[in-house]
């Protein structure tokens, strides 16, 4: 058996792959936060709750009749509405994104002229409400979510066996990050978005409907969180707290990467997942705190974050 620095290969690779999986979620979530912060100037504390909603939406789309019967016996929908995992990857983010659009249109947009702090308080309050409602409706024990059949079992990567589902999560999250990066950094729409981040008034005076663009950006960031939620459903149990467990770490990732940086959040998200995984192998006692230690060091050395522009 191969061993690296005295650590057996399978253990190292196993932890590394777990770290990468966590990193994939950090990347997707902090990417959405970065997009929203850049455009709306709001630190979206509801992000974890919206991630959780994505997982719940996916779970609800799996077999709607089970939970409909829980709400009220006799309530049911046709079987074709049991969409299953693959359609939910699209439908859940669209539904949760539409909910985000509603939140932006009704409450969040009232805060743009105020200090950051108000947006933070409002979205924090929204997170508490959403999570509280979910706990009321479903309890806090969590629902199992069966891994889709096509992704059951392990795959042999040559140097290790990896559960197929984890490999899929890595590819899907990586692909989605690339797609978002491309959209923002390499397309005309993205150029408008970047310009509106710098000077929304002037972009609007060129004939762009900036208020609509802001709403859609929020919806897009929320949809990214929901997409992460769908990916997470088979890995973590679907429960009302799954977002708040993640979100504290994700905010540390955002601070380390630099508020609002697209590339920064992707690289930092995956990077810190790996750091966490390696810490579990070499110094397990520190694995829960290592990200915050990194955060302190980065803040001392580069207050604007690794990829942030100094203000």
């Amino acid at each position: 058996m191969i061993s690296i620095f005295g650590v057996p290969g399978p253990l190292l690779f196993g932890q590394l792959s777990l770290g990468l999986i966590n990193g994939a979620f950090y990347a997707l979530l902090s990417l959405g936060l970065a997009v929203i912060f850049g455009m709306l100037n709001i630190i979206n504390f509801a992000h974890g709750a919206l991630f959780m909603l994505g997982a719940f939406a996916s779970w609800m789309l799996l077999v709607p009749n089970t939970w409909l019967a829980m709400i009220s016996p006799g309530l049911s929908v046709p079987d074709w509405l049991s969409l299953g995992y693959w359609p939910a990857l699209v439908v859940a983010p669209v539904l949760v994104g539409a909910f985000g659009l509603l939140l932006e249109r009704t409450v969040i947009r009232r805060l743009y002229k105020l200090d950051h702090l108000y947006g933070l308080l409002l979205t924090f309050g929204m997170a508490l409400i959403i999570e509280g409602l979910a706990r009321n409706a479903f309890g806090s024990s969590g629902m199992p979510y069966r891994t889709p059949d096509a992704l059951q079992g392990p795959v042999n990567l040559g140097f290790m066996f990896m559960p197929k589902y984890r490999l899929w999560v890595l590819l899907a999250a990586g692909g989605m990050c690339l797609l978002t990066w491309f959209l923002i950094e390499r397309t005309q729409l993205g150029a408008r978005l970047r310009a509106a981040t710098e000077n929304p008034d002037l972009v609007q005076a060129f004939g762009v409907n900036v208020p609509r663009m802001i709403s859609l950006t929020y919806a897009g960031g929320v949809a990214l969180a929901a997409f992460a939620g769908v990916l997470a459903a088979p890995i973590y149990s679907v429960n009302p707290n799954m977002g708040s467990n993640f979100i504290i770490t994700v905010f540390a990732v955002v601070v380390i990467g630099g508020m609002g940086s697209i590339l920064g959040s992707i690289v930092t998200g995956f990077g810190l997942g790996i750091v966490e995984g390696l810490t579990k192998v070499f110094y397990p006692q520190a694995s829960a705190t290592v990200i915050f230690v990194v955060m302190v060091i980065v803040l001392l050395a580069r207050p604007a974050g690794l990829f942030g522009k100094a203000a």
Partner: protein
Amino acid sequence: MLNAANPADPMLRIAGLNSWYGESHILHGVDFDVREGEVVTLLGRNGAGKTTTMKSIMGLVPRREGSIRFKGAETASMRPDGIARAGIAFCPEERGIFASLSVTENLMLPPQIAPGGMSVAEIYTLFPNLKERSGSQGTKLSGGEQQMLAIGRILRTGARLLLLDEPTEGLAPVIVQQIGRTIREIKARGFTVLLVEQNFRFAATVADRHYVMEHGRVIDMIPNSELSANMDKLHEYLGV
């Protein structure tokens, strides 16, 4: 119909325009006209309200009252994007080049709102420097190049009324001349231009008429042909 365009109407007619920034009342009843195909300047000292007038036309001030009719239609209550889509394009005093966009991205940023704008190739012919630096970050350009980019990007959109706020401010004489040639060229192509200038010697080389602003009002209008006869008056207005 109330808003129907009448061929006798000027392209832009501003009447009784008042504007505010918060509590400060800046424009106190501005009146002037710009006819199709004209180059008209707003002259006046620093703080006279020239920039505020342009921002009011674009809907970029927090509060405005009065009438701004563009091609016969009232725009004083429209949002900036609606005003732009009606056919007015704005080149701000601070140029507004975006740091996170390349030169090409800056150039392509304003959406096309009507046919009849200049092609990118024509814009590069007007401003060859821009072509050479198309991949650079917008704000890495020199001040003169940034000004050319700021003018160039609004020529593409199909807007027929261009608002240029002090395009020659702080630029070297050769570049000022190039911008003068550009304004004459776009006039020859049938664009209408409202130009804010401090430098009336430059304004005299491009404009048909001059409005003089003071303390948030238009206080005089001088046709370009009568400029030299009115030099004393102008010196007094502008305090030069």
